[in-house]
């Protein structure tokens, strides 16, 4: 085996100079709370470290996470796969199949015990002895447990692996189960969303490679850097919410003016994700920008929180909807009203979601 392409070489091939590389090592040392003496050590590690092996398994899912991953613009998916990680098993993209695919998995597990990252897309169904999802003639849950055993850490891609997603929506006929309920003895990073944003996915991976540690996680196990704010907090339509300017019907004059979609069921006020900051597909847009409310796809159990076009907040409990209606009728951005509304909504900040659950015939 000849020379291994190291992290340093990857950075060099991407146009990063030796000087910048050393600076980067100093910053890394500082970020890790280490003194300048450690800089050469970090540099040495970066210069000699092989690409981190990644095993990417698929349970019950729709492959939207893989599709999202390859949309990444910075870094490009091809650079991640060719130069940053070694994607040693991924049944969606790998050349080998059948026995040779299974051998590739075994080989990686044996060779890199304790040093590979396990990425999980989808989740295991537990009903029917797990046979609602079969890989190599056996239940997927066995493959998951097997691959998890010697993993350094696990990334739960998307809503399926993190929370269960659509197949776990009521009545969850296959008993589709999120990863953390099956694997309980490994660090798990949840990257929810249906799918997660491409640059969030590659951001999590490159963070782990760069800093050689897990990103800081919130209480639910999500990286704080991407999931600590609600869509609503950073939504560019927020001034219209504050001013009481709402879309009242699809394609009405207010929709054309880009008013707030809260009354059309937007779940932005209760959804923690980076859509309104990072945006989608290289920052081109995000759901609200393109005229549809957020459906809350990065939240636990979002399929069972009432209909997507129902308003988010409980009228009697929080009074937000009443305010929105009154202000909407006043049809002007009364500043005081806006602030009151702000306060009301802010009070919800860490509060649980509460969705109106009226029959469809009564709404709108």
């Amino acid at each position, binding site marked *: *085996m000849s*020379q291994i*392409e190291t992290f340093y070489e990857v950075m060099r*091939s991407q146009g990063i100079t030796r000087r910048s590389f050393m600076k980067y090592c100093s910053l890394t040392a500082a970020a890790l709370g280490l003194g300048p003496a450690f800089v050469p050590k970090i540099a040495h590690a970066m210069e000699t470290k092989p690409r981190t092996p990644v095993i990417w398994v*698929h349970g*019950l899912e729709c*492959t939207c*996470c893989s*599709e999202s991953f*390859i*949309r990444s613009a910075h870094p490009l*998916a091809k650079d991640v796969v*060719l130069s940053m990680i070694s994607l040693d098993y991924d*049944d*969606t*993209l*790998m*050349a*080998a199949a*059948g026995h*040779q*695919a*299974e051998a590739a998995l075994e080989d990686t597990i044996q060779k890199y015990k304790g040093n590979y990252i396990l990425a999980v897309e989808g989740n295991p*169904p537990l*009903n*029917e*002895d797990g*046979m*609602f*999802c079969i*890989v190599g*003639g*056996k239940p997927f849950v066995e493959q998951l447990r097997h691959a998890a055993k010697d993993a350094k850490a696990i990334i739960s891609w998307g809503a399926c692996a993190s929370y269960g*997603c659509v197949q776990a929506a009521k*009545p969850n*006929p*296959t008993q589709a189960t999120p990863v953390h309920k099956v694997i309980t003895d490994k660090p798990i990073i949840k990257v929810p969303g249906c*799918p997660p944003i491409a640059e969030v996915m590659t951001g999590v991976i490159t963070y782990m490679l760069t800093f050689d540690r897990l990103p800081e996680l919130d209480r639910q196990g999500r990286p704080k850097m991407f999931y600590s704010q609600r869509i609503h907090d950073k939504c560019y*339509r927020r001034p219209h919410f504050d001013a009481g300017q709402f879309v009242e*019907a*699809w*394609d009405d004059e207010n*929709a054309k*003016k*880009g008013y707030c979609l809260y009354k059309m069921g937007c779940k932005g006020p209760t959804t923690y994700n980076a859509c309104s900051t990072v945006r*989608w*597909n290289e920052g*081109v847009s*995000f*759901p*609200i920008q*393109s*005229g*549809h409310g957020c459906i809350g*796809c990065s939240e636990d159990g979002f*399929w069972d929180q009432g209909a997507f*076009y129902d308003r988010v907040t409980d009228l009697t409990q929080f009074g937000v909807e009443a305010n929105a209606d009154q202000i909407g009728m006043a049809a002007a951005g009364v500043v005081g009203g806006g602030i009151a509304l702000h306060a009301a909504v802010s009070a919800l900040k860490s509060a649980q979601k509460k969705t109106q659950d009226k029959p*469809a*015939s009564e709404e*709108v």
Partner: protein
Amino acid sequence: MVIQTPNGFTLDNSGKRVVVDPVTRIEGHMRCEVNVDDDNMITNAVSTGTMWRGLEVILKGRDPRDAWAFTERICGVCTGTHALTSVRAVEDALGITIPDNANSIRNIMQLNLQIHDHVVHFYHLHALDWVNPINALKADPKATSELQQTVGPNHPLSSPGYFRDVQNRLKKFVESGQLGLFKNGYWDNPAYLLPPEADLMATTHYLEALDLQKEIVKVHTIFGGKNPHPNWLVGGVPCPINIDGTGAVGAINMERLNMVSSIIDKCIEFNKNVYLPDVKAIGGFYKNWLYGGGLSSKACLAYGDIPENANDFSPEQLHLPRGAIIDGDLSTVHDVDQRDPEQIQEYVDHSWYTYGEPGKGLHPWDGVTEAQYELGPNAKGTRTNIEELDEAAKYSWIKAPRWKGHAMEVGPLARYIVGYAKGHEEIKDQVDGLLRDMDLPLDAVFSTLGRTAARALESEYCGRLQKHFFDKLVRNCINGDTATANVEKWDPSTWPKEAKGVGATEAPRGALGHWVRIKDGRIENYQCVVPTTWNGSPRDTAGNIGAFEASLMYTKVERPEEPVEILRTLHSFDPCLACSTHVMSPDGDELANVKVR
């Protein structure tokens, strides 16, 4: 044992059994078993869907206006096509019409998906069946550059230096000893026939296509806010148009239209300069590998799609053709009616479901599904460690849909055969042109390569159609029509107490239908019959084998333990297993009790 199937295949399961599980480079989970004779020819084929999610039972009781979001999650690869099918089904049930602009925007999004899906399929899921990236290391970059300039003279990335850079990067990758996705490939298998220069050119395009595909989907992002899984709307599309007024940041304005237009041009360029030339160039080296025709010369089905005018689904108004061909008779194209209970029926005698009585076929509006996971008496292994399946019994999570009792192939090749038989001008020109260029007879289309080529032709055609509907959208805006949604029947109080509807599209992988029943403003029953249910179907009651199975028959494999040829043909269908295996019953509640036995 030798069996003659009603659809004309001779099955012999006496030879060596070869199992491929998992079948990789597909969407979802699939298993395939074949028998080969002493000459390594496939004499029996068994295709098995190995996952099941149960989405339709989950839909029961939900708001029909939400159904698009649930069904869109059936598949993230053909993202959006289930959503479009769903909003069409609900609109059909409730008598909702959509504005012209919504029709144009939906068509642009659907066509955009076709192109994206076809490009990603060819380069990232299929190419490695024909292209050997390791062999590319032996290529002469200068000769590769000459090859590029011969097959795709208008492609700007063609210098020897460019190919040398890619080759060096590849070399470094291979020499690292960490082969990643290429690990354990079949790189010394004699089935790979390309010279190193063609391998380097195609591997380079693998990387270029990876960059391009993230650009293509931005059309979805503009109109639907994100990709994968853009947003849709019953009654139209969610994005408003605001060309002149204030606040146009959130709406479709000139800047957004320009972006869409530039992406459409990129698609057209790539199809013309890279995708089609690659298919011709690679195909040229495999001209004698004409296996894999399967059902394509016998029975093809297409629902048709891309209506020229809003709300008009009559066959002559559809740009992608509708029709059925049976018994190999291309002189007669039968019309297809998704509402007719006699035309489309699903059978479960070889699927892990039960209808209570054997031999029954059910139309999707009356569909019933109760899971019954069991292995046949001749299966090897155990219930949770399957070594070999028994295809005489139940063996798949996919049902067996049939059109008037016939097993059908669907997908780009089926569309093109139906279109060709109907005398569809653009399709005929494309097919005749390609056959002329490659010096092949018409019969050559009934093959694995025909399937792969039809997909490339269709991508090119869809590029032109995308432009057509973009121009139509702009023309409409110039004429002052900016409506994108019809909200007359948004409010459930305007709906009938009971209604039923059908939505049909041509997904990238073939004919896709959703059947919905609505009662008291809620979904009473929801059924999907998807392309890979047709293509990947197991045997039916009468013993007809499905399209995957048929296509593998009589293929010679170089090394039975290395499934290169099997992968080639299965991949030529672009299988999508998450789509095919979710089908659920109106009596889903019972299903929750089926669980652990």
